[in-house]
């Protein structure tokens, strides 16, 4: 039985919204609600995977273009935009943050005016699914849905620990589904005005999610996220209007394929919007503030959805940015963000904050790759998107579970995690290794990124990348070390991770391992077709031949060493002793006897080097530098065109 893709597509965009309403009506956490989320989630996942598989195996994706009769959807979109604007105005007035209204009006009203006065171009294809969309479908469908399932269990525990927060978990879960619906809509839209609509939904959704706890901090942070994203939305709106009214272009694919003169102005505006969405410097602070919300929202924002929209847009625009000032500025901003955020990540000990900085840093790398506009750059960027989505969502979820079990998410408190919570520690180790260690996925893409920078002669990027790699290694490895520390005479804590969370975490862990082996296949079947569509050319394997074999041997070795040691009983015959404390251990390796004969506790903290790279020292200068870069880009390219 063959189901028409168009029906599945409609299903995928609409069902999450229906799910949101259903879940929103179930106020209390109950087995029924979990069951609904689980069933609905897996149905959506199956549909998304189905679409992706059909499109990826079709070879020619031109058949998946849909001329919709757009009269009714157009009205829905328009009504939706007005609704979003109303929502923003309502919250701005309620919390007396009036500036948000301005951004919302500036972004929405001109577009509405354009639509209502019939100045908008009637495009042909409103929806299409090409290979890139299919790949994004896989990310949103698998990673995003797993996070929703995780959330159903997590929110119950969350309210168990945070009794001061009003339980509105139904609306939180509903928002997550809205988010996914918007994501499916965005990646399958080719019409710029549709993309804009879904773009704004995600902005408002993330605003509502970040403000979930309604503490003062949450409100402040959520409004910061809102104004930054709406600012980007304004950029998008102007780009959209220029496209429609000056060039008669209504579709993204026309923009990237037409080769018309002067299109760089809207491209720059879209790229600017993408920078805000992907939380590049100078707009990084909204993502850092986003961690006040419950962990599933961070996982969702950081891995499968929000920030990925920005880089999705940049990768789409990549061919047009080749060799332009916009492209150069975007790569420089991305490279700079990669380096600065990785230094900042060294100095924080809050687990979620390290993850946030690492997201910003990695997205910087993706941005930089996309900005080069070369085939190798896009190859690396897509690979990075894939690996980052899986690893980062796993890490966030694990940190959330650790917090639920231990009551803290500080890295210092994860000292000896391998003894306290072995299962979570093991998953965490795989997640962290997935982010930076040799045979794992992120490194493959970083490697490709390096090659693409070298080939495109971007010296500054090469320097940013190599120095950034050094600091990246430092902050991940010291976290890994904290987890691996074995403390004597400590006991396993009760692992209270519920089943629903394991349903999400365990597949993601396997996915990371699987992707180490599968990356040559992924390159051939997922990334190369994207290059084919974007550049109408293919590239020789970025990492190919004997290197792949060697990588496979390395992966095998990484897993063989622990297994082998178990069988060979290495070190089992050795005498156990306490670690060296200059001969004054007091019974275990956590206490020593000082020079007055007193027993003292011993604790080794990680290095944070705050005096040198601290947020106080580095954050604002980085923001200023990046702000100047963005301003230069906008003034020269956009201002220069008039």
């Amino acid at each position, binding site marked *: 039985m063959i189901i028409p893709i168009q029906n599945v597509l409609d299903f995928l965009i609409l069902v999450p919204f229906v799910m949101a309403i259903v879940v929103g009506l179930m106020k209390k956490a109950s087995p029924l609600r979990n069951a609904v989320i689980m069933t609905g989630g897996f149905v959506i996942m199956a549909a998304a995977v189905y679409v992706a598989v059909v499109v990826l195996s079709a070879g020619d994706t031109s058949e998946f273009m849909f001329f919709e009769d757009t009269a009714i959807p157009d009205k829905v979109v328009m009504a939706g935009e007005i609704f979003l604007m109303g929502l923003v105005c309502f919250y701005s007035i309620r919390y007396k943050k009036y500036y948000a209204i301005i951004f919302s009006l500036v972004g929405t009203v001109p577009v509405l005016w354009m639509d209502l006065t019939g100045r908008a171009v009637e495009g042909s294809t409103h929806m299409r699914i090409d290979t890139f969309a299919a790949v994004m479908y896989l990310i949103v469908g698998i990673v995003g849905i797993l996070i929703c399932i995780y959330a159903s269990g997590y929110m119950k525990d969350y309210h168990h620990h945070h009794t001061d927060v009003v339980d509105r978990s139904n609306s939180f879960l509903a928002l997550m589904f809205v988010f996914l619906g918007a994501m499916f809509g965005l990646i399958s839209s080719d019409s710029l005005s549709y993309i804009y609509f879904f773009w704004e939904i995600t902005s408002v959704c993330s605003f509502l999610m970040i403000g979930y706890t309604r503490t003062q901090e949450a409100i402040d942070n959520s409004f910061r996220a809102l104004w930054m994203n709406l600012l980007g939305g304004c950029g998008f709106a102007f780009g959209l209007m220029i496209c429609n009214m000056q060039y008669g272009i209504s579709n993204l694919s026309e923009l990237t394929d037409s080769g018309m003169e002067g299109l760089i102005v809207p491209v720059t505006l879209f790229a600017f919007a993408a920078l805000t969405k992907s939380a590049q410097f100078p707009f990084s602070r909204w993502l850092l503030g986003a961690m006040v919300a419950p962990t599933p929202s961070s996982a969702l924002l950081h891995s499968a959805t929000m920030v990925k929209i920005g880089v999705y847009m940049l990768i789409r625009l990549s061919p047009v940015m080749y060799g332009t000032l916009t492209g150069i500025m975007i790569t420089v901003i991305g490279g700079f963000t990669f380096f600065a955020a990785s230094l900042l990540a060294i100095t924080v000990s809050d687990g979620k904050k390290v993850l946030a900085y690492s997201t910003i840093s990695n997205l910087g790398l993706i941005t930089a790759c996309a900005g080069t506009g070369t085939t190798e750059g896009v190859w690396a960027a897509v690979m990075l998107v894939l690996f980052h989505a899986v690893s980062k969502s796993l890490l966030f979820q694990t940190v959330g579970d650790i917090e639920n079990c231990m009551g803290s998410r500080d890295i210092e408190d994860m000292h000896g995690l391998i003894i306290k919570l072995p299962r979570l520690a093991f998953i965490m180790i795989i997640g962290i290794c997935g982010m930076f260690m040799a045979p794992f996925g992120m490194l493959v893409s970083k490697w490709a990124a*390096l090659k693409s920078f070298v080939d495109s*002669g971007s010296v500054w990027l090469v320097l940013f990348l190599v*120095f950034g790699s050094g600091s990246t290694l430092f902050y991940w*490895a010291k976290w890994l070390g904290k987890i691996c520390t*074995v403390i*004597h005479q400590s006991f396993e804590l009760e692992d209270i991770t519920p089943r629903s969370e394991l349903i999400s975490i365990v597949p993601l862990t396997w996915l990371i391992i699987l992707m180490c082996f599968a990356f040559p296949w992924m390159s051939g079947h997922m990334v190369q077709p994207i290059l084919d569509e974007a550049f109408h050319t293919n590239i020789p394997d970025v990492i190919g031949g004997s290197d792949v074999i060697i990588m496979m041997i*390395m992966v095998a070795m990484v897993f063989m060493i622990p297994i082998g040691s178990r069988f060979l009983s290495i070190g089992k015959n050795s005498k*156990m002793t306490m*670690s060296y404390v200059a001969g004054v251990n007091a019974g275990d390796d956590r206490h020593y006897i000082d020079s007055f004969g007193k027993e003292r506790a011993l604790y080794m903290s990680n290095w944070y080097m705050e005096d*040198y790279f601290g947020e106080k020292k580095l954050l604002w200068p980085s923001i200023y530098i990046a702000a100047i870069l963005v301003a230069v880009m906008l003034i020269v390219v956009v201002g220069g065109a008039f």
Partner: protein
Amino acid sequence: MDFTFLIKALLYVILAPIIGGLLSGTDRLFAARMQGRQGPPIVQPFYDVYKLTHKQTTVVNSIQVLFVTGYLIMTIFTGCLFFAGGDMLLVFFALSMSEVLMVMAAFSTNGPYSIMGAQRELLQMMCYEPMTLLVAIGFYYAQGSFMVSDLILADKPAILQIPGFFIGFVFILIIKLRKSPFDLATSHHMHQEMVKGLTTDLSGSNLAMVEFAEWYDTVLMMGIVGMFFLTASPISRIWAIIACVLVFFLETLIDNIFPRVKYITMLKVTWAVILVFAGTNLLILNVLR
């Protein structure tokens, strides 16, 4: 992967510890003579390691052994990859992975000296990681390939085009070979504030494994130094060997002249040197290309 690949790798596995051990002995002899002492015989490192393997091994935990074994295996693997003619970037990625395993071994002990050593070792890695990657990139700029097997067939020695990279690399070798002023993580010298840092809680055959791995590592580093001089002509090999000897001697000399510095000085100095020498060199190459 053909037959010669395996032979070369095998040769490295067999010969590297012999050369590495001798180098280590030479180093001690050099140092002693510089200080006006007689010094141990050149084969002393072999006696030491032999003795270590016959001592009782005490461990702090069982994971420790796992990491140390992993470190040894990965280091040997890295060297094989290099000498068999593999991809330079992959060599350095594998190298940093093996280093991380060693650091994890120290972290797992929960001992104050070990963990202090581990943190310092990580910082040292942060210092030299940019340079190792840049070396691979430099060779790529100079000769157009990342594969060692292609690089050794060059027309002209790479040093002519990438002298800045060479200076940077020799500089970070001070860290890599654990020489003062940058031997923060292990303190190979007297006045041992660190009680041998990283390896404090290792003993017996475990310590022997680390020593063994470091020999392999030294040979790998010298191999990379030689790469700067190798061309297709056989005479270049003599130059390469002379260069290795000189660099090794220089490292020992530096070791004996300079006192240990603070970690932040190390970070600033190494990054500055890398940026100034390798960075400028890269910029010039890019303009010329």
